[in-house]
């Protein structure tokens, strides 16, 4: 590789990193809302899958990809509402409820895909059904980056944001101050679903097709990015970019130097585990995370 070769390599790496990070950024920001309010959200994976499917179907049936994105946001919010209801009012174990959503998503999207296509488990989108590209990227890439400061301002600079943080740290105190803890949490989880739904819709618009279970664990990696980023929007952004670059790098390095493909494929996952094991420093979760509010 000459100088221009190196420059090209890094340009490609940068473009690919941003593309890979986009669904992670959106979903981890979603997770941020939910977890900051005190509700664990491993349902991100399933919500993304619903978003991917509904986004692709609506884009195809209406011939308008933007409606697809909107529909993905809507279905994301609706599915998250199930998780929210179970976790907040029924005080279900939040991991179990989240897993329930994820299992439901795999089954339901396959089933609905078969109904939609007449028995198939994947379908392709034509050019007019995909989002247009703005420069090197799909619009959702810019939207994801823009969402980071927006979410930051919403949560750290507004009254509603203060309430959100309060119910996640000390729900009893928040209740004493007159905050409706349960409704605050409910809306936080719904917003989280909206963002994860949009994150999911990025996948078919990028790949040009929907396929069963096409999220392939991205929701869990997004959750990893949130934790790695210590439950802050900027941290989630940084972690998403790091995971994205590891993944981009493994794709670019594959097949070079006779190293087995598995070696490079493993890199992003090893990184995730290192992050989750907390080697990079202890991350402090919101204090009331995972604990439903007791009745008075």
């Amino acid at each position, binding site marked *: 590789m000459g100088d221009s070769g190196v420059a090209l390599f890094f340009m490609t790496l940068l473009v690919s990193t941003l593309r890979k990070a986009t669904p992670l950024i959106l979903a981890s920001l979603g997770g941020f809302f939910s977890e900051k309010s005190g509700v664990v959200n491993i349902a991100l994976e399933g919500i993304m899958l619903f978003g991917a499917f509904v986004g692709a179907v609506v884009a195809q049936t209406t011939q308008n990809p933007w409606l697809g994105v909107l529909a993905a946001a809507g279905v994301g919010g609706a599915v998250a509402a*199930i998780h929210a209801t179970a976790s907040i009012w029924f005080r279900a174990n939040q991991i179990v409820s989240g897993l329930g959503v994820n299992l439901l998503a795999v089954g339901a999207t396959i089933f609905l895909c*078969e109904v939609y296509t007449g*028995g198939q488990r994947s379908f392709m989108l034509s050019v007019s059904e995909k989002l247009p590209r703005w420069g090197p990227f799909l619009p959702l890439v810019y939207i994801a980056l823009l969402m980071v400061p927006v979410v930051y301002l919403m949560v750290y600079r507004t009254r509603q944001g203060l309430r959100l943080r309060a119910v996640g740290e000390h729900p009893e105190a928040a209740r004493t101050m007159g905050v409706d803890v349960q409704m605050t949490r409910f809306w936080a989880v719904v917003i989280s679903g909206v963002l994860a739904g949009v994150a999911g819709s990025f996948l078919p618009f990028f790949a040009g097709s929907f396929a069963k*279970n096409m999220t392939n664990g991205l929701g869990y990696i997004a959750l990893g990015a949130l934790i790695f980023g210590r439950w802050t929007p900027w941290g989630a952004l940084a972690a998403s970019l790091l995971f994205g670059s590891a993944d981009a790098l493994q*794709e670019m390095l594959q097949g070079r130097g006779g190293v087995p*493909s598995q070696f490079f494929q493993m890199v992003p996952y090893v990184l995730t585990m290192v992050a989750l094991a907390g080697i990079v420093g202890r991350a402090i979760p919101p204090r009331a995370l995972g604990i439903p509010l007791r009745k008075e």
Partner: protein
Amino acid sequence: MYHARRSTVSGIALVLVTAAALICIIGCGKKKETEVRQGPGVGMTAGVVLSVGGLGDKSFNDLAHAGLMKAAKDLGIRPVYGQPEQMAEDEKYLRDYAEQGFDLIVGVGFLMKTAVEEVAGEFPESRFAIIDCIVEEPNVASLVFREHEGSFLVGALASMKTRTGKVGFVGGMDSPLIHRFEVGYTEGAKYVNPDTDVFIAYVGSHTGAFHDPVRGKSLAISQFDRGAEVVFHAAGSSGNGVIDAAAERGLYAIGVDANQNYVAPGSVLTSMIKRVDVAVFRTIEEVVHGRFKGGLREFGLADDGVGYALDEHNRDVITPEMLARVEELKRKIVSGEIRVTDYYDTIAPDES
């Protein structure tokens, strides 16, 4: 404690009820089949258990399904097929079909090897077939293809087409079968031009690698970025992403198993076809006519079991010179003048 458990249960119940309602609403719209069948196979049933990628891959599974449906139409058999969610369910489907006394049970794909071995042993009176690998049971017909021969030809075409001397390969699950495509392809590309660079990438090492078009596309983009002008995929529905990338760049993909030239006309240079449909149909036909035998059946270039696709969608991108050259290579392979390396011969027999 009691309270906590009850709330967990009601949480799960809520999710399930919603799911059930959802499925009911949509399921009611499903049509019932009321076809009248005719042919020598009336009263017989063939069951096909599809591979994890599922229908809609425009390739492997769709072909197996097409073969089954052709048998229903031409022979009058009752067609049944199942799409397991995951490998762990393969055996359940196979056993279920055997218990129902189906006349032939077909396992699609090498991932089903142990499941077919197991169930065929349990039901020695039932007839089985498996695609893409060898099961040594007397009641199993093993239908295998000489993928390396077809891949050699599309590799040669790729090498003739690229102006940069670079071509790519995107495999689905990193596994011996897919390496068979890869090795044949590389050999074909280098046969035409020994200096050809062949970039090789795999979607993953898990079965999910056959339905990840996102990664399929980004791997293809990465190879196009490095200068490849043609990328061959052997990756199930992950390959839909490879074709999409080629169409977007104005470059070429090569389809696999089915003729995928129509998926993006002009952007699919050709397809390495593998007549899974023919194999399934012929085996059902044998059962219908009482000629079924267990054992190995190979489909290669000589009997058009594999090959490259030429139709109205790619006639403009394959020049007459390319066509003449690839036809000559085909003749040489069939006559034995060219021996394409079979990846299976290079590894211990157990691994295939």
